[in-house]
């Protein structure tokens, strides 16, 4: 039996009149990489933004249905019944464009979650978190001598890894990545993809991508969305070689998208 970390029940999300996500039931497997793919505007981003309650920040946004975070087998959190701040600390997020905080140094960016939330860290603890997390995202060797510099000096790929580090430093159960490489060049993209593979031992990863190739390369499970609906979900090997739904077939062969 696979170990589920995040489960949705009849999740429906809308903006104003437009329903972006319709009735999605999805179970994300722990310590695996799940890719959510589909043509643009199919609701992928909205779906993961429902996972950490970022969706409700948009004007006139509405969510129905339930999302459960299963921290371990006996602690299940209904994320829409607790404080969103708490949810977001347990379910981290990385965005399309790298967005390190410009006023903070690299060091501060890594522990930004603690600084901004007003959680006091001992100097030695902070040092340890910074080093450990930066090592996890293979950035430590590149930046260890310039930790006090501002994050904006890094390259796009490095900035994105810094943002991943920032999310990881909060020790979340899940991190959501919303097309994390769409603003990066191919080499930086490859590095991030390799990084995800290493990270999945410590954290569950959900990645939204419109790039079929990327979904194929990095994921263990794929969810294919079309017009707000979850069309197909399963192991990547299966979905990529013999999808059971015609729409998936068409999308993978480039006929829609």
């Amino acid at each position, binding site marked *: 039996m696979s170990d589920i970390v995040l489960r949705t029940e009849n999740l429906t999300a809308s903006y104003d009149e437009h329903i972006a996500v319709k009735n999605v039931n999805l179970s994300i497997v722990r310590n695996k990489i799940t890719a959510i793919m589909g043509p643009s505007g199919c609701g992928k981003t909205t779906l993961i933004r429902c996972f950490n309650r970022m969706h409700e920040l948009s004007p006139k946004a509405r969510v129905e249905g339930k999302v459960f975070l299963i921290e371990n087998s006996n602690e299940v959190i209904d994320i829409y019944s607790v404080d969103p701040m708490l949810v977001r600390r347990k379910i981290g997020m990385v965005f399309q464009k790298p967005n390190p905080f410009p006023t903070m140094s690299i060091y501060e960016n890594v522990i930004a979650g603690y600084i901004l939330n007003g959680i006091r860290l001992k100097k030695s603890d902070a040092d340890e978190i910074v080093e450990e997390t930066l090592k996890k995202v293979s950035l430590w060797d590149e930046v260890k001598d310039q930790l006090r510099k501002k994050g904006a000096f890094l390259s796009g790929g490095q900035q994105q890894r810094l943002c991943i580090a920032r999310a990881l430093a909060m020790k979340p159960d899940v991190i959501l990545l919303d097309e994390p490489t769409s603003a990066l060049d191919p080499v930086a993209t490859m590095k991030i993809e390799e990084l995800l*593979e290493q990270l999945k031992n410590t954290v569950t990863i959900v990645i939204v991508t419109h790039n079929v*190739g990327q979904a*194929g*390369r*990095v994921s263990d499970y794929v969810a294919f969305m079309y017009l707000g609906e979850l069309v197909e979900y399963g192991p990547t*090997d299966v979905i*990529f*070689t013999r999808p059971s739904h015609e729409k998936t077939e068409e999308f*993978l062969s480039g006929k829609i998208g």
Partner: protein
Amino acid sequence: MFYEKLNKLKEKIIEQGNLVESMIEKSIRGLINKDKALLLEVIQVDEPRTNEVEIEIDEMCISLIARFQPEARDLRTIITILKMNNDLERIADMAENISESALFLIERPLLKPLIDLPKMAEETIRMLKDSIDSFIKNDPKLAKDVCERDDIIDAYRDQILRELITYMISDPTSIERAIHLERISRNLERIADLATNIGEDVVYIVEGKVIKHGRYKDTEAGDA
């Protein structure tokens, strides 16, 4: 990620190669030593196993292509593995054929002492081994060498056929046994052909050149 998976695939195909190789060897040994159990093992255990592995390799290849869209050498490698996989499975079938004939022969008196057949089998097994080795080591020279050795096997086969014909002419009761012996040598010859195919594929992987169907000579000329 991709290379990890590709390496796993390579390991798998080598495993299949080794298995198939041992099947030929077992079936010939079973014939010489009149070891019925060994021959039955080839038919009942090894052959179904190769079928399973074949499907497994097929799926791995397709998944790799579907998910990673490999290009150039990686693509050639996967496509070649796909073909090798097919060849190996057929070799396994032939080893099964040999075992079947062997099962028939060991119940009956020997038509003649087995001299050429073990030599031919030995040579065939070596060809198969070398072709797989050339794949493992990415050694086009060895692969080309395998292709050249196909002629030796053909010679053995002709030699055995001629001999068997003389037996069949002189003694009609020997015909059934002779046909089984001929079947064994024919299967060995076909195995050698498939080994040659694998050799050609290895050249294709490494050098990207097609040396099949006589194009081999041109490449030689071009290289010289």
